[in-house]
Protein backbone atom coordinates (compact mmCIF):
# COMPACT_ATOMS: atom_id res chain seq x y z
CA UNK A 1 0.00 0.00 0.00
CA UNK A 2 1.54 3.30 -1.13
CA UNK A 3 0.75 5.93 1.54
CA UNK A 4 1.84 9.56 1.49
CA UNK A 5 0.80 12.98 2.83
CA UNK A 6 -0.70 11.48 5.96
CA UNK A 7 -2.07 14.17 8.28
CA UNK A 8 -4.32 14.12 11.31
CA UNK A 9 -7.73 15.82 11.15
CA UNK A 10 -8.79 17.98 14.08
CA UNK A 11 -11.55 20.17 12.74
CA UNK A 12 -12.58 21.97 15.89
CA UNK A 13 -9.54 21.69 18.13
CA UNK A 14 -11.06 19.01 20.35
CA UNK A 15 -8.62 16.29 19.39
CA UNK A 16 -7.64 14.14 16.43
CA UNK A 17 -10.59 12.28 14.97
CA UNK A 18 -9.19 10.91 11.74
CA UNK A 19 -6.36 10.92 9.21
CA UNK A 20 -6.36 12.12 5.65
CA UNK A 21 -3.79 10.56 3.35
CA UNK A 22 -3.04 9.74 -0.26
CA UNK A 23 -3.27 5.96 -0.59
CA UNK A 24 -2.53 4.35 -3.94
CA UNK A 25 -3.23 7.67 -5.61
CA UNK A 26 -6.53 8.50 -3.92
CA UNK A 27 -7.16 10.97 -1.09
CA UNK A 28 -8.86 9.00 1.64
CA UNK A 29 -10.28 9.78 5.07
CA UNK A 30 -9.30 7.10 7.55
CA UNK A 31 -10.84 6.49 11.00
CA UNK A 32 -8.64 5.88 14.04
CA UNK A 33 -9.70 2.25 14.29
CA UNK A 34 -7.27 -0.67 14.23
CA UNK A 35 -9.95 -2.85 12.59
CA UNK A 36 -9.77 -0.53 9.58
CA UNK A 37 -7.26 -1.95 7.09
CA UNK A 38 -5.88 1.46 6.07
CA UNK A 39 -5.32 2.60 9.66
CA UNK A 40 -3.70 -0.74 10.50
CA UNK A 41 -1.33 -0.31 7.56
CA UNK A 42 -0.55 3.30 8.56
CA UNK A 43 0.35 2.12 12.06
CA UNK A 44 2.52 -0.63 10.57
CA UNK A 45 4.40 1.79 8.35
CA UNK A 46 4.82 4.32 11.17
CA UNK A 47 6.24 1.57 13.39
CA UNK A 48 8.59 0.56 10.58
CA UNK A 49 9.78 4.14 10.30
CA UNK A 50 8.67 4.54 6.69
CA UNK A 51 5.78 6.92 7.32
CA UNK A 52 5.09 9.87 9.56
CA UNK A 53 1.74 11.47 10.27
CA UNK A 54 1.75 15.25 10.24
CA UNK A 55 -0.09 17.23 12.90
CA UNK A 56 -3.49 18.64 12.04
CA UNK A 57 -3.65 22.13 10.55
Amino acid at each position, binding site marked *: MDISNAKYINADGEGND*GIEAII*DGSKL*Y*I*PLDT*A*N*RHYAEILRQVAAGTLTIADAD
Partner: protein
Amino acid sequence: MSRARDLADLGGSADAGGLTGRSMLINGAFQIWQRGTSAITVSGDDDFTADRFKGWANGGGTFTVEQSTDVPNNEFEFSAKLTNTATDSSVAAGDDYRWATDIEGYNVSPLAYGSSDAKKATLSFWVKSSLAGTYCGAFYSTTASRHYIYEYTISSADTWEYKTITIDGDTTGSWNRTNGNGLRIYWGFGSGSDVQGTADAWAAGEKWETTNQAAWIGSASATFFITGIKLEIGQTATPFEHRSYGDELALCQRYFAVLQDTTAAYAGGFGFCNSTTKTKVCFPLGVALRANPTVNVTAATIDIRNNATNTAASSVSAAIAQGTNLYLDVNAASGLATNHACAIDPKQNMTFDAEL
Protein backbone atom coordinates in the same frame (compact mmCIF):
# COMPACT_ATOMS: atom_id res chain seq x y z
CA MET B 1 -38.51 -45.04 6.38
CA SER B 2 -35.08 -46.60 5.94
CA ARG B 3 -31.80 -44.87 6.52
CA ALA B 4 -30.97 -45.40 2.85
CA ARG B 5 -34.20 -43.63 1.86
CA ASP B 6 -33.35 -40.72 4.19
CA LEU B 7 -29.94 -40.36 2.60
CA ALA B 8 -31.35 -40.56 -0.90
CA ASP B 9 -33.84 -37.83 -0.08
CA LEU B 10 -31.07 -35.73 1.42
CA GLY B 11 -28.99 -36.13 -1.72
CA GLY B 12 -31.93 -35.11 -3.86
CA SER B 13 -32.51 -32.09 -1.68
CA ALA B 14 -28.89 -31.05 -2.07
CA ASP B 15 -29.09 -31.37 -5.84
CA ALA B 16 -32.15 -29.14 -5.78
CA GLY B 17 -30.36 -26.55 -3.66
CA GLY B 18 -32.08 -27.67 -0.49
CA LEU B 19 -28.94 -27.65 1.62
CA THR B 20 -28.44 -23.92 1.92
CA GLY B 21 -26.22 -21.71 3.97
CA ARG B 22 -23.20 -23.97 3.58
CA SER B 23 -20.97 -21.64 1.59
CA MET B 24 -18.67 -19.46 3.66
CA LEU B 25 -17.61 -17.46 0.63
CA ILE B 26 -19.37 -14.36 -0.76
CA ASN B 27 -19.95 -13.42 -4.41
CA GLY B 28 -18.73 -16.76 -5.76
CA ALA B 29 -20.87 -16.35 -8.89
CA PHE B 30 -19.54 -12.83 -9.55
CA GLN B 31 -22.85 -11.02 -9.57
CA ILE B 32 -21.64 -8.02 -7.59
CA TRP B 33 -19.11 -5.51 -8.96
CA GLN B 34 -19.67 -2.25 -7.06
CA ARG B 35 -16.41 -0.82 -8.41
CA GLY B 36 -17.51 -1.46 -11.98
CA THR B 37 -17.83 -4.45 -14.27
CA SER B 38 -15.28 -3.21 -16.82
CA ALA B 39 -11.66 -4.33 -16.73
CA ILE B 40 -9.86 -3.24 -13.56
CA THR B 41 -6.07 -3.36 -13.76
CA VAL B 42 -4.15 -5.17 -11.05
CA SER B 43 -0.70 -3.58 -10.91
CA GLY B 44 0.32 -3.37 -7.28
CA ASP B 45 -1.08 -4.44 -3.92
CA ASP B 46 -4.67 -4.94 -2.80
CA ASP B 47 -6.33 -3.92 -6.05
CA PHE B 48 -10.02 -4.69 -5.50
CA THR B 49 -11.91 -6.08 -8.48
CA ALA B 50 -15.20 -7.95 -8.12
CA ASP B 51 -16.66 -7.49 -4.66
CA ARG B 52 -14.77 -9.56 -2.09
CA PHE B 53 -11.91 -10.31 -4.52
CA LYS B 54 -8.60 -8.48 -4.87
CA GLY B 55 -5.33 -8.95 -6.69
CA TRP B 56 -1.62 -8.29 -6.49
CA ALA B 57 0.86 -7.87 -9.34
CA ASN B 58 4.42 -6.92 -8.46
CA GLY B 59 7.33 -7.49 -10.81
CA GLY B 60 6.41 -5.84 -14.09
CA GLY B 61 3.52 -8.03 -15.15
CA THR B 62 -0.08 -6.87 -14.87
CA PHE B 63 -3.49 -8.35 -15.41
CA THR B 64 -7.04 -7.11 -15.60
CA VAL B 65 -10.18 -8.48 -14.00
CA GLU B 66 -13.65 -7.93 -15.44
CA GLN B 67 -17.12 -9.39 -15.36
CA SER B 68 -17.75 -11.85 -18.18
CA THR B 69 -20.79 -13.68 -19.50
CA ASP B 70 -18.61 -16.62 -20.57
CA VAL B 71 -19.92 -19.31 -18.21
CA PRO B 72 -19.70 -23.10 -17.91
CA ASN B 73 -23.43 -23.70 -18.19
CA ASN B 74 -26.72 -21.91 -17.99
CA GLU B 75 -26.75 -22.28 -14.21
CA PHE B 76 -24.46 -19.24 -14.06
CA GLU B 77 -24.89 -15.75 -15.49
CA PHE B 78 -21.40 -14.38 -14.90
CA SER B 79 -17.78 -15.27 -14.35
CA ALA B 80 -14.65 -13.28 -13.55
CA LYS B 81 -12.26 -12.97 -16.46
CA LEU B 82 -8.58 -12.34 -15.79
CA THR B 83 -6.43 -11.26 -18.74
CA ASN B 84 -2.66 -10.98 -18.82
CA THR B 85 -2.03 -7.40 -19.98
CA ALA B 86 1.74 -7.18 -19.37
CA THR B 87 3.87 -10.29 -19.42
CA ASP B 88 6.56 -11.13 -16.89
CA SER B 89 8.63 -13.80 -18.61
CA SER B 90 11.53 -13.57 -16.20
CA VAL B 91 9.97 -13.82 -12.77
CA ALA B 92 12.30 -12.78 -9.94
CA ALA B 93 12.24 -14.42 -6.52
CA GLY B 94 10.19 -11.65 -4.97
CA ASP B 95 7.69 -11.14 -7.80
CA ASP B 96 4.10 -12.00 -7.00
CA TYR B 97 0.99 -12.49 -9.09
CA ARG B 98 -2.09 -13.57 -7.17
CA TRP B 99 -5.79 -13.05 -6.67
CA ALA B 100 -7.73 -13.79 -3.51
CA THR B 101 -10.85 -13.49 -1.44
CA ASP B 102 -10.76 -12.73 2.27
CA ILE B 103 -13.38 -14.33 4.51
CA GLU B 104 -14.37 -12.74 7.81
CA GLY B 105 -13.56 -14.67 10.97
CA TYR B 106 -17.20 -15.00 11.98
CA ASN B 107 -17.94 -16.82 8.72
CA VAL B 108 -15.18 -19.41 9.01
CA SER B 109 -15.26 -19.95 12.77
CA PRO B 110 -17.13 -23.28 12.36
CA LEU B 111 -13.96 -24.67 10.75
CA ALA B 112 -12.42 -24.44 14.24
CA TYR B 113 -8.98 -23.78 12.82
CA GLY B 114 -6.31 -23.41 15.44
CA SER B 115 -7.94 -26.03 17.67
CA SER B 116 -7.97 -29.80 18.02
CA ASP B 117 -11.48 -29.73 16.50
CA ALA B 118 -10.29 -28.26 13.18
CA LYS B 119 -12.41 -29.63 10.33
CA LYS B 120 -11.81 -30.55 6.74
CA ALA B 121 -12.93 -27.98 4.18
CA THR B 122 -13.77 -28.29 0.51
CA LEU B 123 -13.26 -25.59 -2.10
CA SER B 124 -15.01 -26.01 -5.44
CA PHE B 125 -15.12 -23.86 -8.56
CA TRP B 126 -15.43 -23.81 -12.33
CA VAL B 127 -12.34 -22.65 -14.22
CA LYS B 128 -11.17 -22.12 -17.79
CA SER B 129 -7.79 -20.88 -18.99
CA SER B 130 -6.09 -20.34 -22.31
CA LEU B 131 -3.04 -22.03 -20.80
CA ALA B 132 -3.41 -25.64 -19.65
CA GLY B 133 -1.22 -27.03 -16.89
CA THR B 134 -0.86 -27.24 -13.14
CA TYR B 135 -2.16 -24.31 -11.15
CA CYS B 136 -1.84 -23.51 -7.47
CA GLY B 137 -3.51 -21.56 -4.75
CA ALA B 138 -3.54 -21.54 -0.99
CA PHE B 139 -5.54 -21.26 2.17
CA TYR B 140 -3.88 -18.60 4.32
CA SER B 141 -4.38 -16.91 7.65
CA THR B 142 -3.06 -13.38 8.03
CA THR B 143 -3.30 -13.62 11.81
CA ALA B 144 -1.92 -17.12 12.35
CA SER B 145 0.53 -16.76 9.44
CA ARG B 146 -0.23 -20.28 8.26
CA HIS B 147 -0.72 -21.56 4.72
CA TYR B 148 -1.81 -24.68 2.88
CA ILE B 149 -0.96 -24.83 -0.84
CA TYR B 150 -3.29 -26.73 -3.16
CA GLU B 151 -2.70 -27.77 -6.75
CA TYR B 152 -5.23 -28.42 -9.50
CA THR B 153 -4.84 -29.30 -13.15
CA ILE B 154 -6.40 -27.51 -16.08
CA SER B 155 -6.38 -30.37 -18.56
CA SER B 156 -7.49 -28.60 -21.73
CA ALA B 157 -7.02 -25.00 -22.80
CA ASP B 158 -10.11 -22.85 -23.27
CA THR B 159 -12.43 -25.45 -21.76
CA TRP B 160 -14.53 -25.07 -18.64
CA GLU B 161 -13.58 -27.63 -15.98
CA TYR B 162 -14.98 -28.22 -12.49
CA LYS B 163 -12.46 -28.53 -9.65
CA THR B 164 -12.84 -29.64 -6.06
CA ILE B 165 -10.13 -29.37 -3.43
CA THR B 166 -10.42 -30.83 0.06
CA ILE B 167 -7.93 -29.94 2.75
CA ASP B 168 -7.36 -30.98 6.34
CA GLY B 169 -8.10 -28.54 9.14
CA ASP B 170 -5.23 -26.70 10.77
CA THR B 171 -4.86 -27.36 14.48
CA THR B 172 -2.10 -24.79 14.90
CA GLY B 173 -1.96 -21.03 15.33
CA SER B 174 -4.17 -18.19 16.49
CA TRP B 175 -6.91 -17.75 13.88
CA ASN B 176 -9.29 -14.82 13.82
CA ARG B 177 -12.86 -15.96 14.55
CA THR B 178 -14.59 -12.58 14.85
CA ASN B 179 -14.67 -9.56 12.53
CA GLY B 180 -11.06 -9.75 11.38
CA ASN B 181 -9.51 -11.68 8.53
CA GLY B 182 -10.49 -15.30 9.17
CA LEU B 183 -9.24 -17.00 6.03
CA ARG B 184 -7.82 -15.98 2.67
CA ILE B 185 -8.16 -18.16 -0.42
CA TYR B 186 -5.45 -17.55 -3.03
CA TRP B 187 -5.24 -18.34 -6.73
CA GLY B 188 -1.70 -18.02 -8.11
CA PHE B 189 -0.51 -17.07 -11.59
CA GLY B 190 3.26 -17.61 -11.61
CA SER B 191 5.02 -15.90 -8.71
CA GLY B 192 8.65 -16.03 -7.65
CA SER B 193 10.48 -18.59 -5.55
CA ASP B 194 9.97 -16.59 -2.33
CA VAL B 195 6.35 -17.75 -2.18
CA GLN B 196 6.82 -21.29 -3.44
CA GLY B 197 6.29 -24.09 -0.95
CA THR B 198 5.07 -27.64 -0.58
CA ALA B 199 1.55 -28.69 -1.54
CA ASP B 200 -0.97 -30.53 0.63
CA ALA B 201 0.32 -29.63 4.09
CA TRP B 202 -0.12 -26.79 6.55
CA ALA B 203 3.04 -24.78 7.18
CA ALA B 204 4.12 -21.47 8.69
CA GLY B 205 4.37 -18.27 6.66
CA GLU B 206 2.68 -16.99 3.53
CA LYS B 207 3.13 -19.03 0.35
CA TRP B 208 0.64 -19.88 -2.38
CA GLU B 209 2.39 -21.78 -5.18
CA THR B 210 4.64 -24.74 -5.85
CA THR B 211 7.31 -24.98 -8.53
CA ASN B 212 4.68 -26.77 -10.66
CA GLN B 213 2.65 -23.59 -11.18
CA ALA B 214 1.97 -22.79 -14.85
CA ALA B 215 3.66 -19.59 -16.03
CA TRP B 216 0.36 -17.82 -16.73
CA ILE B 217 1.84 -14.36 -16.15
CA GLY B 218 4.52 -15.23 -18.71
CA SER B 219 1.97 -16.05 -21.40
CA ALA B 220 1.03 -12.97 -23.39
CA SER B 221 -2.71 -12.21 -23.39
CA ALA B 222 -3.45 -15.37 -21.40
CA THR B 223 -6.96 -15.56 -19.99
CA PHE B 224 -8.37 -17.20 -16.88
CA PHE B 225 -12.11 -17.46 -16.18
CA ILE B 226 -13.58 -18.59 -12.88
CA THR B 227 -17.04 -18.84 -11.33
CA GLY B 228 -19.18 -20.91 -8.98
CA ILE B 229 -16.68 -20.70 -6.15
CA LYS B 230 -17.84 -22.36 -2.94
CA LEU B 231 -16.11 -23.11 0.36
CA GLU B 232 -17.81 -25.45 2.80
CA ILE B 233 -17.13 -27.67 5.77
CA GLY B 234 -16.49 -31.33 5.06
CA GLN B 235 -14.93 -33.39 2.32
CA THR B 236 -17.77 -33.33 -0.20
CA ALA B 237 -18.44 -30.56 -2.68
CA THR B 238 -22.18 -29.94 -2.71
CA PRO B 239 -23.93 -27.99 -5.49
CA PHE B 240 -23.31 -24.26 -5.72
CA GLU B 241 -25.78 -22.18 -3.71
CA HIS B 242 -27.37 -19.40 -5.70
CA ARG B 243 -28.33 -16.55 -3.41
CA SER B 244 -30.67 -13.82 -4.59
CA TYR B 245 -28.99 -10.74 -6.06
CA GLY B 246 -30.27 -8.69 -3.12
CA ASP B 247 -28.87 -11.09 -0.55
CA GLU B 248 -25.50 -11.25 -2.29
CA LEU B 249 -25.30 -7.45 -2.59
CA ALA B 250 -26.14 -7.04 1.10
CA LEU B 251 -23.41 -9.50 2.05
CA CYS B 252 -20.91 -7.50 -0.02
CA GLN B 253 -22.05 -4.16 1.42
CA ARG B 254 -20.84 -5.21 4.86
CA TYR B 255 -17.36 -4.58 3.42
CA PHE B 256 -17.84 -1.90 0.78
CA ALA B 257 -20.74 0.47 0.18
CA VAL B 258 -21.31 3.19 -2.37
CA LEU B 259 -23.49 6.23 -1.79
CA GLN B 260 -24.43 7.07 -5.38
CA ASP B 261 -24.27 10.68 -6.49
CA THR B 262 -27.56 12.00 -7.77
CA THR B 263 -28.14 14.29 -10.71
CA ALA B 264 -30.32 16.52 -8.59
CA ALA B 265 -29.59 18.00 -5.19
CA TYR B 266 -30.62 15.37 -2.71
CA ALA B 267 -29.14 14.99 0.71
CA GLY B 268 -27.34 11.83 1.76
CA GLY B 269 -26.92 12.57 5.45
CA PHE B 270 -28.50 14.70 8.12
CA GLY B 271 -27.43 16.12 11.44
CA PHE B 272 -26.37 19.33 13.15
CA CYS B 273 -23.42 21.70 13.29
CA ASN B 274 -21.38 21.01 16.40
CA SER B 275 -19.28 24.12 15.84
CA THR B 276 -18.57 26.64 13.10
CA THR B 277 -16.22 24.08 11.47
CA LYS B 278 -17.75 20.67 12.18
CA THR B 279 -21.02 18.86 11.49
CA LYS B 280 -22.20 15.68 13.17
CA VAL B 281 -24.26 13.75 10.64
CA CYS B 282 -25.78 10.33 10.15
CA PHE B 283 -25.81 8.36 6.90
CA PRO B 284 -28.34 5.51 7.06
CA LEU B 285 -26.97 2.38 5.38
CA GLY B 286 -28.76 -0.80 4.48
CA VAL B 287 -26.22 -3.10 6.09
CA ALA B 288 -24.04 -2.94 9.20
CA LEU B 289 -20.43 -2.39 8.16
CA ARG B 290 -17.76 -4.80 9.40
CA ALA B 291 -15.70 -1.98 10.93
CA ASN B 292 -15.37 1.79 10.87
CA PRO B 293 -14.83 2.58 7.19
CA THR B 294 -12.37 4.61 5.17
CA VAL B 295 -14.26 7.31 3.27
CA ASN B 296 -13.32 8.08 -0.32
CA VAL B 297 -14.73 11.32 -1.67
CA THR B 298 -13.35 14.66 -2.78
CA ALA B 299 -14.40 16.68 0.25
CA ALA B 300 -14.78 19.91 -1.71
CA THR B 301 -17.55 18.26 -3.71
CA ILE B 302 -19.70 17.92 -0.61
CA ASP B 303 -22.07 20.78 0.11
CA ILE B 304 -23.05 21.36 3.72
CA ARG B 305 -26.50 22.94 3.61
CA ASN B 306 -27.07 24.86 6.80
CA ASN B 307 -28.82 28.04 7.88
CA ALA B 308 -29.71 29.05 4.31
CA THR B 309 -26.10 28.65 3.20
CA ASN B 310 -24.12 26.15 1.11
CA THR B 311 -20.63 25.57 2.45
CA ALA B 312 -18.04 23.36 0.77
CA ALA B 313 -16.65 20.66 3.03
CA SER B 314 -12.92 20.52 3.75
CA SER B 315 -12.59 17.00 5.15
CA VAL B 316 -14.45 14.01 6.54
CA SER B 317 -13.53 12.37 9.82
CA ALA B 318 -14.66 10.20 12.72
CA ALA B 319 -16.33 7.56 10.57
CA ILE B 320 -18.15 5.48 13.16
CA ALA B 321 -20.27 2.51 12.11
CA GLN B 322 -22.98 1.60 14.60
CA GLY B 323 -25.58 -0.87 13.46
CA THR B 324 -26.85 0.22 10.07
CA ASN B 325 -25.97 3.87 10.70
CA LEU B 326 -22.71 5.54 9.75
CA TYR B 327 -21.84 8.64 11.73
CA LEU B 328 -19.49 11.15 10.11
CA ASP B 329 -17.99 14.50 10.93
CA VAL B 330 -18.14 16.52 7.74
CA ASN B 331 -15.89 19.50 8.33
CA ALA B 332 -15.62 22.99 6.86
CA ALA B 333 -13.02 25.74 7.13
CA SER B 334 -15.52 28.11 8.76
CA GLY B 335 -19.00 29.56 8.54
CA LEU B 336 -21.30 26.88 9.94
CA ALA B 337 -24.11 27.93 12.30
CA THR B 338 -23.53 26.08 15.55
CA ASN B 339 -26.43 23.93 16.76
CA HIS B 340 -28.39 24.46 13.58
CA ALA B 341 -29.57 21.49 11.57
CA CYS B 342 -27.72 20.60 8.39
CA ALA B 343 -27.99 18.30 5.39
CA ILE B 344 -25.06 16.80 3.51
CA ASP B 345 -25.30 17.02 -0.27
CA PRO B 346 -22.56 14.95 -1.99
CA LYS B 347 -21.83 15.95 -5.58
CA GLN B 348 -20.03 12.71 -6.39
CA ASN B 349 -20.12 9.12 -5.23
CA MET B 350 -18.96 8.49 -1.68
CA THR B 351 -17.54 5.07 -0.89
CA PHE B 352 -17.24 3.46 2.51
CA ASP B 353 -14.50 0.83 2.70
CA ALA B 354 -14.57 -1.66 5.57
CA GLU B 355 -12.72 -4.36 3.61
CA LEU B 356 -10.59 -6.93 5.38
